[in-house]
């Protein structure tokens, strides 16, 4: 892929060749795309919907739709933003028709992170997950891409389809909102 901004958003080395084969009906090639991108799509969709079963459903539906639309896919473009756009639309419409499902984002302890003790970590996971659930979909989306997928601003802009400036301001506003929601927790430290 020529665009350096997409290096992490587009991790499959011979992606275009795989896409070309998948678009021609090669299911094994589509399987390669699936294995490369489904876990990442699922992680972001889970961050949006906060429900494992729904996130798996949306991931599956997104890939079924992608399979049907692949023959019309413009070769040369990165696949992840395209796949994510399909999953994002499904997530937003699923969320709109299922407003009662938000409770908390289930978070795990990151491997290799400095441990604050088990109880403290459980508390942090719970409070941060509950705080994230109170954010809007767009806010959760940007937090997931930045913090859990480690995408740069340019990569996020490309995936979400908005200017870099919008990413910067949305991320800052989201952090401010999250900071307010986590104020009590911070006061404990």
């Amino acid at each position, binding site marked *: 892929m020529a665009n350096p901004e997409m290096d992490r958003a587009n991790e499959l080395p011979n992606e275009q060749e795989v896409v070309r084969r998948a678009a021609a009906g090669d299911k094994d090639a589509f399987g390669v795309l699936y294995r490369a991108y489904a876990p990442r799509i699922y992680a972001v969709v889970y*961050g949006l919907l906060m429900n494992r079963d729904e996130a798996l459903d949306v991931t599956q539906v997104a890939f079924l739709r992608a399979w049907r639309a692949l023959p019309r896919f413009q070769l040369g473009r990165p696949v992840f933003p395209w796949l994510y756009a399909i999953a994002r639309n499904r997530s937003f419409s699923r969320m709109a028709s299922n407003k009662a499902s938000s409770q908390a984002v289930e978070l795990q302890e990151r491997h290799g992170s400095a441990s604050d003790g088990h109880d403290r970590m459980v508390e942090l996971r719970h409070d941060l997950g509950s705080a994230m659930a109170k954010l809007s979909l767009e806010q959760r989306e940007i937090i*997931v891409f930045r913090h859990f997928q480690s995408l740069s601003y340019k990569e996020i802009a490309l995936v979400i389809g908005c200017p870099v400036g919008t990413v910067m301001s949305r991320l800052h506003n989201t952090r401010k909102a999250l900071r307010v929601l986590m104020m009590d927790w911070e006061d404990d430290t």
Partner: protein
Amino acid sequence: MRCHEVGELLSALLDGELSSSEEQDLLRHVQVCPVCSQEFRDLQRLEDMMSKVCLPDLPDAAWEEHWSCLYNKLERRIGYLFAGIGITLLLIYGFFELLHMWFLNPAVSLLLKMSIGILGVGLIILCISTSREKLLSRRYDRYKELVR
């Protein structure tokens, strides 16, 4: 640099998204401004909290199982397509056969032709009406995308 210009640049500084000159300008301001300095510390604390957690992932075996389920659906889709084409061709063939054997045959009575004709028209209307209802109800079905 003034406080109202800093805002979202603090986040960008935290994420390493600024050029070195922008970074130096901003750090110079943060060092002398207690308000922006406090805001930057708050953002760093949040970043520290976020760095300790991650989203849950599924084990590789679960992804393989998920893929084989999806693969079967893709395969069945081709089966449905061929079956649909075959049924359509058979229906067209049957229609012309019926036309040839019954309706164009002077030996068959007019009453029988009319009865079969009316029955055919009724079945077509029922078929169209049911299909339309199914399509419309699917459009507004909240659970249509749930893969069961």
